[in-house]
C-alpha cells in the first residue's frame, strides 16, 4: 500500500500531491510530517473559499500512492506559535454539543433544510430551540416547515424582521452553496472519471 514518494521525508512548506488508496486526490502544502507514523499533514485550499481559513488534511502515507512533490521548500519553516488550549478545548466542547443538538433535532424528523436553517440561526441567535419541527427563536418567532421566510411568524417587531432577514440570507446562501457543490461535484466526477 505504502508508496513512498520521491523521498522518505517531506520538508515543511513543500507542495505535495498524492492519491489515497480510496482514490482521493490530495494536494497541499506540507505543514507537518511525522516519519515514524508516516503521517503527513497538508494545508489545502479551503473548501469554503474563505481566505482566512484552510483545510487541513492528515494523510497516512501508508495508504497513499503517487506521492509527488510539486515544489520543494528548503527554507526554514515558520516558528510555531503557542496555542491557547482553553480556547481549543472550549471549541471542542461547543462543537460536540452543537452536533449532539443537531442530532437531536434530526432525530425529531426535521428536514435537512430545517436543520441547516436552525444551525444558521443558532450561529447568530443562541436563544433558539426545536419545538417539534418548529424552530423557536427568542420565544417570539416560530419558524415552521418548510422554513421559508414566509413561515416566520410572531409578533411584528424587530425580532421578526431580524429573523426573516436571517432566513432570507440563509436560503440565498443555500442556493449559492448548492451551486458550488454542484460545480464541485461535477469537478469531482470529472476528476474521478479522468
Amino acid at each position, binding site marked *: 500500500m505504502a508508496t513512498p514518494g520521491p523521498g522518505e521525508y517531506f520538508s515543511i512548506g513543500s507542495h505535495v500531491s498524492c492519491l489515497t488508496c480510496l482514490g482521493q486526490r490530495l494536494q497541499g502544502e506540507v505543514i507537518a510530517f*511525522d516519519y515514524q507514523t508516516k503521517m503527513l499533514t497538508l494545508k489545502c485550499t479551503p473548501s469554503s473559499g474563505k481566505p482566512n481559513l484552510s483545510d487541513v488534511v*492528515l*494523510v497516512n502515507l501508508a495508504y497513499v500512492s503517487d506521492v509527488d512533490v510539486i515544489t520543494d521548500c528548503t527554507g526554514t519553516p515558520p516558528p510555531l506559535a503557542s496555542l491557547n488550549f482553553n480556547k481549543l478545548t472550549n471549541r471542542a466542547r461547543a462543537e460536540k454539543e452543537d452536533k449532539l443538538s443537531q442530532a437531536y433535532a434530526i432525530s425529531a424528523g426535521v428536514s435537512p433544510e430545517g436543520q441547516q436553517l436552525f444551525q444558521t440561526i443558532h450561529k447568530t441567535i443562541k436563544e433558539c430551540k426545536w419545538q417539534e419541527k418548529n424552530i423557536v427563536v427568542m420565544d417570539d418567532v416560530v419558524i415552521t416547515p418548510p422554513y421559508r421566510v414566509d413561515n416566520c411568524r410572531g409578533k411584528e417587531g424587530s425580532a421578526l424582521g431580524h429573523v426573516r432577514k436571517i432566513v432570507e440570507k440563509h436560503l440565498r446562501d443555500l442556493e449559492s452553496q448548492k451551486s458550488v457543490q454542484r460545480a464541485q461535484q461535477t469537478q469531482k466526477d470529472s476528476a474521478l472519471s479522468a
Partner: protein
Amino acid sequence: MLSITSHQCITRWAVKTKSILLITTLLDLFSASQVAFSGVYANMRMVHILTSVVGTKCELNVKNGVIYEGVFKTYGPECDLVLDAAHRKSPEPSMGPRREDIVESIIFKSSDVVVVHFKDVDLNYAKKDNFTDSAVSARLNGEHKEKDLEPWDGGDQHASGSLESLDTDLSNGWDPDDMFKYNEETYGVKSTYDSSLSSYTVPLERDNSEEFLKREARAAQLAEEIEASAAYKARVALENDERSEEEKYTAVVRETHTLSREHKYIPPSQRNREPGLSWGTGRQNSPRLVQCNPGPPAPRAGPHDYNIPGVDQRIVNGGAHPWPSRCPSPSSRPPSRYQSGPTTSLPPRAATPTRPPFRPPSRPLRPPSHPSTHGSPAPLSTVPKHLSLEGPPRMSPKSQRTPRTHRVASCRGGGASGADFMSQGASVEVSTPVPARSSPSGGTWSSVVSGGELSHRPRSPRQNSMGGTASGPSLSSPQAGSVTADSVNMSTTVTSPTTASPAPIVAAIPLVEAKESRIQETRQNSPSSNKENMKPMESSPSINRPVSKGLPSIAPDHRKQIDNLKKFSVDFRLQPSSNPDPVFETTVTKPPRDSGEKPKEQPKDKNTDLTGPKVCSESPSSDEPVTAVAAAPAGSKPNTPSPSPSASALSAQPEQKRGPDVTSQGVQTSLPAAKSDKDDKEEKKDPVPESIKKSTLNPNAKEFNPRAFCTPPKPATTPTLPRPQGQPSPSIVVQQPPAMYGQTMCFPQMYPLTPVSPGVQVIPHMTVSQSKPYRPVPNMPQQRPDQHHPPGTSTMMHPATAAGPPIVAPSPAYSTQYFTCSPQQFASQPLVQQMPHYQSQAQHVFSPVLQGSARMITPPTHGQPSLVSSSTTQYGEQTHTMYAAYVESTTPSFFSAPIPQQYPHPSATLHPHPQHPQPSATPTGQAQQGAQHGGSHAAPSPVQHPQHQVAAAAAAAAAQALHLGNPPQQQMYTALAPTPPSMTPGPNPQSPQASFPSAQQAVYIHAPQVQHGYNPNHMAHVQQAHMQSGMVPAHHGTPSHPPVMLMATQPTAGPQPPLPQGTLNPIPVSSTTHFSYMTHPQGKASMFSPDAVSCTELNTLKPYSRQTLFDNTITFTKNCSFALVLFVLFQYHLISSSCRGVLASYN
C-alpha cells in the same frame, strides 16, 4: 476495525483524555525545552498542527472506505485519533446524523486511518498572540488595500512654520492671563485670581521708621546669613545645578592639563589644576578620585563653590554622600587645622615655604603646587633635599599619586568612605598645595610663610572642606580632587621627602616637615585651594574668606577656632572630634584637632611660636638632643641605620608631630630650624633614606607593608613600654616591639625597627612627654607622641583598612610610634595631650573613641570623614550613619590615604620637630597634626597604591596601635608602634614615608590617645573599653577587613602585650596606671586592646566633650554613632581577636 464497541471507546477515551492533558503540557514544554517525547509527541510541528485543529469537525476515512465524522478531540503518541460525537457518515449527503447514530467518542488507530479531512480550519484560532500585527491582519475581514497617502493640508495658517513654531515656541504652555481670558471669552468664566494674594497675606507697608529699618536690616542680615550658609548654597546648588545626571555622576571629564609630568595617569581636571608637577600628578590623582565622586559635585559646587567653597563641596557631597560628608568634614577640619595650623605650621614650613608659594596656585595649578610641594618638601627636608629632591619626586609622585588616586577613587566610590577619603585626600592635597598657595595665601599667613605650608595643610583641609563647601562643586571636586591631590602630593612630596629622607629618620623628619608643610600648605592651600577651587588663584578669596576667617583673621589657632566656632560650630565640634582622627589620618582632621588642640595647643603653639624661632633655634640646637626628639627620630635613625626606618619613622613622627605643632604654632622661624633639623636628619638619614627611598619609591607599598608590619610589632612593644616604663620605654619599648612583631606578623622588620625605635622612641617619648611641658626637647617628644597618635591613628586606620601586609607594616610603625608616644604621653603630655586629643578626637564621636578608634581606623579617612562629618554637623549625622559603611570603604581608603598622608606628614613632622618641642602644648596639636597628617596620608594613600598599602599597613598598624593605644595603654603602645612602623616604612621609599607618617600619625594618635587614655582611663576605663572594643572592631572591620583584622589584632596584641609589659614596666606612671587599668580590664590582650582602645576613646571622648560643649554634644552623637560603628566593628574585632590570638602566639 471501525466497529468499535462503546466500551472500547470509553477505554480509549480515557487514554485520549490523558493524552490531551499530555499534549497540553507537551506543547507548553515544547516551547520551553525539548523534552524527549515519544512518537508524534516528539514532532513539534505535528503536535502543533494537530493541536491547533482540536475542536474542529473532521471527516476521517478509514482504510475500508468508511467515513466517520466527528469533532477532533485529541490524539495519542502513536497518532491515534479521537473523535467526539462521531458518527458514521451516511452516504446521504444532506442528512444529518441521528441522535442514535452519534457515538460519544471514537479512537482510531493510526494504522486504520487513511485520511483525515479538517475543513475550513482557522489555524490561527488558538494562537495566543492575538494582538500582534500578523495576528490582527490575519483575522481581518474583507479587503485590506493599502490606503493611498494623502498630503496633509493644514490650511494657510499652518501651511508654513506652524510646526516649527511648536518647536520654537519657548512659552511653557499658556500664560495664566491667556487662560483667564480664553475662559472668560469662551465660557464666560470670570477668574477671581488676585496677584496680590490679598486673601492669603497682607502687603508690607513700608515706612521710614527706625523700627522698620531695623527690622529690614535684620531681615536682610538674616537673609544674607541664610543665603551664605553652606546648607543653603548646597541646596541651591542642587536645585540650580544645570548639569545633567550624566555629567554629575557618570561622565568622565577629561580636562586638558597643561602638565603631565608624572606621566602617571592624571585626571584631566587635576592635571589642569596642577600642571606638570609630579606632585601635581599625585594631586591630580587624588583629584581624580575626588572627581570621580566629586566630578559631578565639583561642577555643582563650582558655582556655589565660588560663593562658598565649603558649601559647594558639601553640596557636591550632597550629590554624592561621600563628598558632602567629606567636604564638610574637610572644611570643618581644615579650618580648625588651618587656624591652628597656619600659625604653627606655617613657621615650620617657612623654610619650605619657598616652594609652598608655588602651591597656592597649585590647586588651580596643582601641578605647580605639587612641584611646590615637592619643592617644599625638599626644602622642608632640606637635608632630605637630596633624597627628597630625588626620592620624593619620584616616589611621592608615583606612589603617592597613584595610590592616592586609586584610594581616593575607591574611597570616593565608597561614598562616605569616599568622602572621608576625599576629605582626607583633599586635606592632604590641600596641605600639599598649600605650600605653593601659601605664597599667595601666605599673605594672610604670610608670617607663616614657612608656616605657610603648615597653614596650607590645615587650609587644604579647610579648603577641602571649604572648597568642598565653599568652592563647592567644581572646586570641591576639583578641590577635593586637587586638594586631595595636592594634599596627596604634599603628602607624597612630604612622604617623598620622608621617603627620600627614606632614611627612616630623615624620612620621618621630612614627614614631620611634610606634615608641617602640609599643614601649613593645607592651611595656605585652603586659601589657595579655595582659590583654586574657585579659581586657581582667585579661589583664594572665597576660600580665603572661610579660611581667611581662621587664617587671616588671626593666628592659625585663631583661625581654626574661629572657623570652627563660626563656620563649623557644629562641624567644628565634629571636626574637633574628627580632627583628632583626621589629623592623625589626614590633615583634615587637623583642623578639628587644631581647633580643639590649637586652642589648647595654640597657646602652647603660640608660645612655641613665640619660641617658635626659639624652637627653631632650639630644634636646630636640639637637633642633636632633639635629633633625639625631633631628632629623636633622626637621632635614633642615625643611631640605628637599619632600624633607622623605625627610628626615622619615630623621629619622623615626632618631627611630624612637631611639624604640625610647629606649623600650628606658626613656627615660621622654627621651620627653618626644623628644616635645618630636618636637613640634618635628612643628611644623617640620607644614606639610609636613599635606600629606603629607593625601596619605597618602587615597591613602596609592598616594602612598607613588611616594614609596617615590623613597625607594628614595635608599636606593640612600645605600647607596653610606654605604659609601664613611660620613659624607660626604650628597653621596654624594644620588648614590646617584639611582641608587636609577633602580633604584627612583621617580626623581622619589627625587630630591627623596634631596636632602633626603642632607643629613638624612648627618647622621643621621653622627650615628648617631657617635651610637652618643656617645649625644647621634651616638647619634641611630646609632639611626637601627638604626631604619633595621629599617625598611629592614621596608621591604625590604614592597617585596618589595609590588608594583612599593610597591617603588619602599620603595626610596627604604630608600635614604634606608640612607644615613643607612650613614653611621652605618659610623661607630661598625657594630660595635656589627652585634653587636646579629647577635644579633637572627642569631637568626632568616632574620634574620641576613635581617637583611639578613629586613629585605629585610620581612620584617617574614616576619622577624617567621621571627623569631618563630626566636625561638620552633617558629618556628625551623616558620617555617623555613614560610618559603618564608610568605615569599611573608607578605612581602606584611609589606609591608603593615611599612608600617603603619613608620608607627607613625616616631612611635615620633620619640620615640626624643632617646633614640636616647643609646641609641647601642641602635642595635642601635633597629635592633631599627626591626625591631619594621617588624614592627609589617608588621602594620599589612595593615590599611591604602594604607599597606600604601606600606608594602609601603617594606617592599619596605626589603627591597631590606636586600637591598642585606644585603651590608654594600647594607645601608648599603638603610638609607639606607629613610630616603629614609620621606621619600617622608612626603608621603603614610599612605604617608609607612609609608614613614617602613618607611624608618626599613629604615634600622635596614640600619644593623644594615650594621654587621653591616662586621663580618660582614669575617668572611664570602662567606657573606653567599650568604645575601644566597638571602635577597634570597627576599625578593623572598616579598614581592609582581613588586613584590618590582622592589623587590629596585631596592634591589639602589640598593645596588649605591651600593656602587660607596660604594667610590668612602670615607666610611664600615668600610662602604666592606665595601662594597668586597661590591661586589667581588658584582661585579655587581644580583646582588651580593642576594648581598651574603645575605653580610651571613650575616655578621650569624655574629656573632649567636657572640654568642649560642642564636642560634648557631638561626642554624644558620635558616641551613639560610635556605638553603632563599634558594633559593626565588633565583628571585625572578633576576627581581629583571632588574628590577635595568632599574633599573641607569635609574641
